[in-house]
């Protein structure tokens, strides 16, 4: 076979299988009919209207956003500190930190979630006040922040910080003016990954959520067990759009370039 000519075909096929389901969901959300079918029976925005008037879905959406923002923020601080520590300490200690920080990525999500569930009940806290849920999501997002920040620090020259100090900058100003700007791209993409992973998480949220609350993926799952209307597709499309908006916003605000 002629490989160079086969390659673009293969690429297109891969993209098709990856993106076609998403396209189907988006198209199905504009369905005018009463059932989630494809191709859609007529075009309408009625299921979006239903969604925006559905308090349960809206609450779940806000809950998801809150958890994702809170978890990513906490992870950003812990992950960045850990990445800076790994850079400055001995290689042996750095390896131990790296292992600890990336462990949540290696262990099955369900196992981590069950472990946390037992732990929080043993502590007498249980799943109240979303503490367990938040801790679970922090664990989920931590590896992404740690890995991304570590990567952007790989080419970091410790002399940069010393130079800043010798020029009269305090440790805080050195961090703010030199260290931070040089790891910004890693931190931003790490937060982005973390946010999306948290927004999307199912097992962790399912096991650790407080009674009566639900994140968007769980609400969607609950809904689809009993209903089969295009409203589910509308909710999905809406969260795709929100995710996209967040990526674009971060890109413009922090001006990160995805190529170096």
């Amino acid at each position: 076979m002629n490989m160079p000519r086969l390659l673009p075909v293969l690429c297109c096929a891969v993209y098709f299988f990856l993106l076609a389901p998403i396209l189907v969901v988006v198209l199905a959300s504009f369905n005018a009919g009463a059932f989630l079918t494809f191709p859609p029976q007529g075009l309408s925005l009625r299921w979006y209207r239903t969604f925006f008037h559905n308090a349960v879905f809206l609450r779940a959406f806000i809950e998801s956003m809150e958890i994702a923002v809170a978890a990513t923020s906490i992870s950003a601080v812990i992950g960045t500190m850990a990445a800076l520590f790994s850079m400055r300490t001995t290689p042996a200690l750095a390896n131990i930190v790296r292992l600890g920080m990336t462990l949540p990525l290696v262990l099955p999500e369900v196992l981590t979630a069950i472990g946390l569930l037992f732990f929080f009940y043993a502590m007498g806290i249980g799943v109240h006040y979303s503490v367990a849920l938040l801790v679970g999501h922090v664990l989920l997002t931590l590896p992404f922040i740690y890995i991304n920040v570590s990567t952007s620090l790989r080419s970091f020259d410790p002399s940069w910080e010393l130079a800043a100090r010798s020029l009269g900058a305090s440790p805080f100003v050195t961090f703010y003016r030199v260290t931070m700007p040089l790891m910004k791209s890693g931190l931003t993409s790490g937060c982005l990954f973390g946010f999306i992973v948290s927004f999307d998480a199912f097992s962790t949220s399912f096991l650790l959520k407080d009674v009566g609350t639900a994140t968007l993926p769980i609400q969607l799952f609950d809904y689809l067990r009993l209903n089969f209307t295009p409203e589910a597709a509308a909710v999905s499309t809406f969260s795709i759009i929100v995710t996209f908006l967040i990526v674009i916003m971060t890109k413009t605000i922090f001006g990160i370039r995805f190529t170096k």
Partner: protein
Amino acid sequence: MTTVAIENLTRHFGRTRALDDISLSIDDGHFVSFLGPSGCGKSTTLRVLAGFDACDRGRILFDGQDVAALPPEQRDIGMVFQSYALFPHMTVGQNVAFGLEMRRLPRDAIRQRVRAVLDLVHLADHSDRHPRQLSGGQQQRVALARALVIEPRILLLDEPLANLDAILREEMRVFIRELQQRIGITTIYVTHDQAEAMAMSDMIVVMFGGRVAQVAPPRDLYECPGSLQVASFVGQANYLAGHVAHDNGQLAVVTPLGTRPLDGRSAITAPAPARNILIRPESICITPPAASDAVPATVISVQYGGNLTNYVLALADGQQLHVQTATPPSHAGGDRVGVRLADAPLWVIPDCRP
């Protein structure tokens, strides 16, 4: 401007003594090099002076003020790193302005001083470039400008030429030395390259194993080393067994290659038996084998070096001699020749028996 005094500086890393009771004083406006092999403590000394590393014991005095407890940002130093350490996310102008911004100077004053110092290092039209767009030599000069623009009390340079190629290194040597003399700033320079230290310094501090072996101006260091270790580190050296004796009422050094007066800088005041005599390769002359006062020798190898020729010769007793002449090679391996000492006083290495 500024004098520097180091008193009993000691620093341990675990159980090894990186700095072992270093004491030293540096005159205002002097260019002092710390010279030694890697791991001798010269870089540690610089880091302790800059405040990047603490010392376990000792005092560091800038103009009599003890700065040992101050963090680096309060020591008022200018530092140039081996990797230059230019901030990659800032332009050349922003890099140079950084130290002035930390000192909260008005914006106009900053702009003026940045322009002036970039003029000084011939990079005035590179102000808006990023460091990665500059050559190694240009980055070096930006690093120098960034350290000098804050008008620090002392300038610290940590092997700044190590990453440059040979020709540029020679150029920068002259440039840095000239700039330093023009500004008159007290400068401490760390290097493992003895030629670099000799070419630039007013004073050289030779260090071995965390201790100061000798402090001397370049010429004294080369001609009158205090120990075998120093003599061998600073240039090539031959050692002949000899002794000091009276000769016509003066002290003279008697060696297998002949007798010459004792160097006036020597502390030896009486005849002394069995000493190591330092003979630099350029103070041995090659003569025809039958010359009157020559000692016979055999050429072992010849190395042509353009302006200089290096020979390895063997005396009758098997001792090898390194000889350097300023003439093109006139002998080949296996030739029989004669050697005699140049007519100059000889240095006896103190407290060192063959």
